[in-house]
């Protein structure tokens, strides 16, 4: 192998390196993980075709099905676009400028991710409804009625403000991880701050934007909470309505299978736009861009986003909590549910991080068709609505693995299948910044591949692995459908407590577990953002 040139960036997948065969140590676990991920898809195929081709054709040729496909694709595209537009400036402002209190803003801007969409969506409806709380505030100004937020605008707004942090976090990580030397060179050669941003910084961020955008797009496809509360007919809502109305699982399975195909298409597009460059320059603190008078609009942007996506939902929850307490609603103990939430989410985070490692290492160190396919496969379960994933594991678990059915093991398995790409993506980005030469040196000094993975690669990529685990942890804390159906009987989490109260519309009782859920998820998020500095 030729040693890496001293250039600041170099192409990782140049195809110049001689083909190496990946060790079985990597391929076997990766193959097992992929096999596990294929279970829900297999279930959908079995269910879709069990009543023959006619049913499939009937559902596919129904005009409504195509309309749902179009609506879902439109929603995913719009939410992704809006998230990028919102997140990239925020990420840049909080990493590369002298924005006042920028680390506080960074933590605050990442936090909306911890708010479950079924809580956020509900708050949005009650706050921004035609005569909701906002209208109440504006009434003295003569505003009698706000425009309807149901449908496309409301769903876009809700999903954007609660999922843009995916892009924000990946772009921030990229900005921290790349060498600012290129930007400095651009500035010293006479380009202004704007030109440097668009011509140097933005292209460097492209892989991160695409990776974060992919998570936003697929999350949008899978989300049920926001689209049902805001009444937008996407796949997730349509699938639920099928279960509700017909109690016939075939049409729902066919719709879900179409969703899988849509996901595969998105992954294909993503593969084309991701770009092939790996950057492993020396990360160091960039000299901040002086904002000057631009400080005020920048602060306004940060403040506005945080007010809508974080302060408003938390404020409404606090209002419900106080109103309930004043009305004599007793505070119930939550620590049992909180402990269950933390335990299950912690297990999911650990196992997802472990399962992601072989896949990510294969994808980065042994690029090829197969490893690329394995990495992409992890995203398929992510785009499925939770209820579909849960029912597929109900089917397999109850009928073929009754010893595992309704145990914590199967529940954690479901979480990992659902949220694995978050861990894979973060681990992959971190590995891209580890020079292969370090690993090769260790091999050259006589270490075996397993030892190198455990003692060199994993520690060097630890910040990415931790970031991935933290993301899985957060999303598991919020997860509902799989938790309800697959958990051990009587297993209670904060999310199920929130659900139980809101399903009977006891807002005061829902507010306390919802706030605790947000608070507990905020801790790893805070550490994640703070850690980036050294990581």
């Amino acid at each position, binding site marked *: 192998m030729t040693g890496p040139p001293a250039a600041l960036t170099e192409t990782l997948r140049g195809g110049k390196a001689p083909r190496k065969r990946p060790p079985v140590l990597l391929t076997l676990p990766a193959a*097992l993980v992929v*096999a596990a991920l294929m*279970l829900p898809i*297999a279930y959908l*195929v079995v269910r879709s075709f069990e009543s023959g081709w006619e049913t499939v054709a009937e559902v596919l040729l129904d005009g*409504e099905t195509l309309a749902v496909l179009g609506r879902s694709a439109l929603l995913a595209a719009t939410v992704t676009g809006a998230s990028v537009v919102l997140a990239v400036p925020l990420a840049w402002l909080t990493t590369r400028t002298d924005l006042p209190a920028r680390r506080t803003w960074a933590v605050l801007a990442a936090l909306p991710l911890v708010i479950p969409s079924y809580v956020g969506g*509900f708050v949005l*409806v*009650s706050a921004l409804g*035609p*005569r909701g709380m906002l209208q109440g505030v504006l009434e003295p100004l003569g505003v009698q009625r706000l425009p309807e937020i*149901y449908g496309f605008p409301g769903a876009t707004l809700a999903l954007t403000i609660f999922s843009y942090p995916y892009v924000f976090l990946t772009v921030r990580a990229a900005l921290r991880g790349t060498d600012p030397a290129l930007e400095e060179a651009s500035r010293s050669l006479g380009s202004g701050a704007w030109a440097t941003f668009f011509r140097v910084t933005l292209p460097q961020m492209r892989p991160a934007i695409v990776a974060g955008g992919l998570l936003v797009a697929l999350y949008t496809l899978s989300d049920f909470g926001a689209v049902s509360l805001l*009444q937008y007919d996407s796949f997730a809502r349509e699938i639920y*309505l099928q*279960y509700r*109305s*017909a*109690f016939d699982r075939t049409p729902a399975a066919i719709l879900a299978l179409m969703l899988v195909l849509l996901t595969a298409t998105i992954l294909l597009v993503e593969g084309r736009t991701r770009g092939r460059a790996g950057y492993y320059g020396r990360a160091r603190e960039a000299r901040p861009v002086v904002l000057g008078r631009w400080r005020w609009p920048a602060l306004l942007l940060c403040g506005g986003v945080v007010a809508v996506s974080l302060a408003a939902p938390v404020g409404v929850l606090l209002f419900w909590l106080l*109103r309930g307490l004043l*009305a004599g609603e007793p505070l119930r103990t939550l620590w049992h549910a909180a*402990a269950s939430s*933390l*335990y299950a989410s*912690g*297990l999911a*985070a*650990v*196992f997802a*991080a472990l399962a992601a490692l072989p896949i990510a290492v294969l994808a980065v160190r042994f690029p090829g068709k197969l490893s690329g396919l394995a990495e992409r496969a992890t995203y398929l379960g992510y785009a499925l609505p939770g209820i579909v994933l849960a*029912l597929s594991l*109900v089917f397999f678990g*109850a009928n*073929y*693995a009754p010893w*595992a*059915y*309704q145990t*914590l*093991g*199967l529940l954690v398995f479901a979480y990992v299948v659902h949220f694995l790409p978050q861990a894979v993506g973060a681990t992959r980005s971190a590995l891209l910044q580890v020079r292969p030469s370090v690993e090769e040196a260790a091999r050259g000094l006589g270490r075996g591949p397993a030892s190198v993975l455990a003692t060199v690669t994993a520690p060097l990529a630890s910040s990415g692995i*931790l970031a991935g*685990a*933290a993301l899985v*942890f957060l999303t598991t804390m919020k997860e509902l*459908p799989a938790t*309800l*159906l697959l958990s*051990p*009987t*009587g297993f209670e989490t904060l999310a*199920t407590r929130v659900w*139980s109260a809101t*399903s*009977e*519309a*006891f*807002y*005061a*009782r829902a507010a306390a577990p919802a706030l605790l859920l947000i608070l507990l998820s905020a*801790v790893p998020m805070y550490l994640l953002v703070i850690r980036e500095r050294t990581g």
Partner: protein
Amino acid sequence: MRLSHLVALAFATALALWALAGCGQPPPEEGGGRTASETTGETTSETTGEETTVAEALSPGEGTLVVYSGRSEELVGPIFEQFEERSGVDVQVRYGDTAELAATILEEGDNSPADLFFAQDPGALGALDDEGRLTELPREILDRVPPRFRADDGDWVGTSGRARVVAYNTDELAEADLPDSILDFTDPEWGGRIGWAPTNGSFQAFVTALRELEGEEGAREWLEGIQANDPFAYPDNLTAIEGVASGEVDVAFVNHYYLYQVQEERGGDVPVANYYLQDGDPGALVLAAGAGVLDSAENPRAAESFLEFALSQEAQQYFADETVEYPLVEGVEIDEELVPLDQIQSPEIDLSDLDDLQGTLELLRETGVL
């Protein structure tokens, strides 16, 4: 079918390896201090997940009863606790969405761990019944409730009733201002004044009843007429009542008990009252939550004795007092604010006739309500 076996084999292998990798090791938090450090701050004292063991010899009041409950813990949890105390049966309840639990039971097939399905509405029970998944209940259980609140074939029984009402703002309207029939709300004078919750199961059951009573065309005309009055669509009944209370709308089509919930939550007087329609009007429909015993139940005896308990004076009194629903057995005192069940002039319709939810959803879709 062969495909499913193949997949199942792959699944079993994967799970076995998973178990080996996961459970065979020392506790996960000892994963080497790298990846695991993320979770070290968390309590792992929790040891849930004990196995569900079903006792072989079943005499009444023994063993384990596994319930899938579409009714939330907030409402029915105490009933299960009381039954457990009285009977000595170990009750294990899985709470969830009624429709999702019904789909779960269908997926589980004969391996379903559930003995009893406790549903929010008769639709889901009817769906399980259609698939032959419920068993006939003993006469003495069925006979405790009026015939219209149980399945024709005796496979499920209603446990508590909910009346459809028109909630109205008492500052804006008097009862005399309200029309005699729900059908009259299509009058343009109600433009911009109506609230409803089209995604709510009880509302949809009402539309199904409307289709039965007024015919497909009659129901469509009503929905289109209300749509023409630009109604507010609320995410649920409670927000609809809040809308009435705040004056956002003047009336809302809801279930009777949400009003009491709003009063409790707000801790005081709310300018809202319930209006019961009369003369067998479709708007005066009384719905019921109910339950059925599964054909695959391992402990059907315990499931039946729970139903006996749920239909006892004591449990029915609980529903009347705590959830402010209508008891379905006779001789239970109800909240004095409620119009007694036998005075509600409900339409002549059996709840087991309200099973065509799919047709209702299609109609709601076509008229742009959903």
